[in-house]
């Protein structure tokens, strides 16, 4: 596979970004350092290149009906210019992908999907098009995207546009925001647990937007941010990562995300039967949060034990930059998932005690 470069690649190199390959793209894992970048987002602002994300449009008379069939959340519940988080599942309840759906109107929706899944999603969508009167367009290659995240985001972006950004509420967007002469789609969304915006522009214009935001944010202490802190930030904020907390093999129910699976919506959807059955019969395993009581750092893939018996694995784990503690998510036997229960995380073949806690780590602060 040819590894792709986003339109911002040269900027990353100029800024001293440490480039790695991720999901088929060359992207910076960090510039100055993961921790200062993480802290900039929590305390001021950070700017991420997320141009690798996929943009798939669904257009046509049956757009809504098709999405209701394809996706687990109730797409009919949002209005124009609103956004909803959803899963796209296989018939067995496993997850094809998780993403945001932007509603332009009843006949046009934008799906912003995980970079690594874009081709798979597009094919899945085509394969399940049936007789719905729609067209599906993958425009990922034409669109650049940056995410401005952190408490100072609105003040910074407001310097660059006449649109009153305070009018864009969380999970809403405006398609006609002029930023430095570039027509952008701006949504109040993100993947960090902080306030912020995601800005979409034609790929040739995104460099201008990127540099403009960095310049405008200087006085607030903005930092360009890499993939490294993108993951620690979303993890602390209890947001799932496809492949870790949910996957082909981990259903949204097991991932503790039933809220986004609407059994009660009128239309049948792919995966409903299997998910309903799993829910009615009771989960056998479940995603939990934990805090390490002994020394060490839990990492993705480490085994979880109780009384010498394997009960699951760590899906994400870190020394949390915000909480300065070793915390993680683990998918474990539901019988051991009670808050306060003590389990062992195997770190380099040694058991280290951990306590089950809420996954909403930032609220435990």
């Amino acid at each position, binding site marked *: 596979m040819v590894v792709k470069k986003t339109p911002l690649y040269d900027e990353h190199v100029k800024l001293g970004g440490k480039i790695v390959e991720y999901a088929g793209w060359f992207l910076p894992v960090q510039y100055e350092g*993961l921790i200062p970048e993480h802290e900039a987002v929590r305390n001021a602002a950070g700017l991420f290149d997320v141009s690798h994300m996929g943009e798939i449009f669904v257009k046509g008379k049956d757009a809504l009906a098709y999405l209701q069939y394809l996706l687990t959340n109730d797409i009919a519940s949002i209005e124009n210019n609103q956004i909803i988080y959803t899963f796209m599942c296989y018939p067995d309840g496993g997850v094809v992908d998780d993403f945001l759906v932007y509603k332009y109107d009843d006949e046009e929706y934008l799906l912003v999907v995980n970079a690594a899944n874009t081709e798979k999603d597009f094919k899945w969508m085509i394969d399940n098009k049936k007789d719905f009167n729609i067209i599906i367009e993958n425009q990922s290659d034409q669109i650049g995207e940056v995410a401005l995240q952190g408490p100072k985001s609105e003040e910074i972006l407001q310097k660059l546009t006449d649109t009153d950004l305070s009018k864009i509420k969380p999970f809403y967007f405006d398609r006609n925001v002029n930023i430095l002469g570039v027509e952008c789609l701006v949504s109040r969304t993100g993947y960090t647990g902080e306030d912020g915006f995601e800005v979409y522009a034609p790929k040739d214009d995104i460099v201008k937007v990127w540099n403009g935001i960095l310049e405008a944010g200087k006085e607030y202490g903005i930092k360009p941010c890499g993939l490294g802190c993108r993951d620690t930030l979303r993890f602390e904020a209890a947001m799932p990562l496809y492949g870790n907390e949910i996957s082909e093999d981990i259903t949204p129910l097991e991932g503790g995300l039933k809220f986004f699976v609407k059994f009660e919506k009128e239309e049948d959807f792919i995966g409903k039967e299997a998910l309903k059955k799993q829910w009615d019969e009771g989960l056998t395993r479940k995603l939990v949060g934990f805090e390490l009581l002994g*020394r060490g*750092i839990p990492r993705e893939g480490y085994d979880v034990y109780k009384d010498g018996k394997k009960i699951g694995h760590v899906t994400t784990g870190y020394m949390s930059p915000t909480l300065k503690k*070793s915390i993680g998510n683990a998918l474990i036997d539901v019988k051991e998932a009670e808050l306060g229960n003590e389990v062992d995380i195997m770190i380099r073949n040694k058991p280290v005690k951990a306590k089950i806690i809420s996954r909403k780590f930032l609220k435990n602060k």
Partner: protein
Amino acid sequence: MRVIKDLYYTNDHEWVRVEGDEAYIGIADYAQDQLGDIVYVELPEVGDEFSKEDAFAAVESVKAAADIYMPLDGTVVAVNEELLDDPALLNEDPYENWIAKIEIADKSQLDELMTGEEYEKFLDEEV
């Protein structure tokens, strides 16, 4: 990358400073730079015996964990406990802040390590 000439080095970017029959062991500047901000260090215990190339300690950044390998056969006689409270010392000065001190079992193994000059060349050519 900073290289101190009168130390010995391994391919895995550990350094060795010999004092009599004992040796201090740490990680080279290149290793700390690759890892980024170090947030956790796992040390061996005094008295632990290791063979050359055994993993004897671990150094972790937020993003990654790296095993540190023994450059020589030996027995741990001291560990740098300062690193437990302040792992970032390894970023600040990886040559001043050693990880473990060992009693060397077989001094002839030193010949298998790189000198500072050889290591500099190794960094230029192979890394």
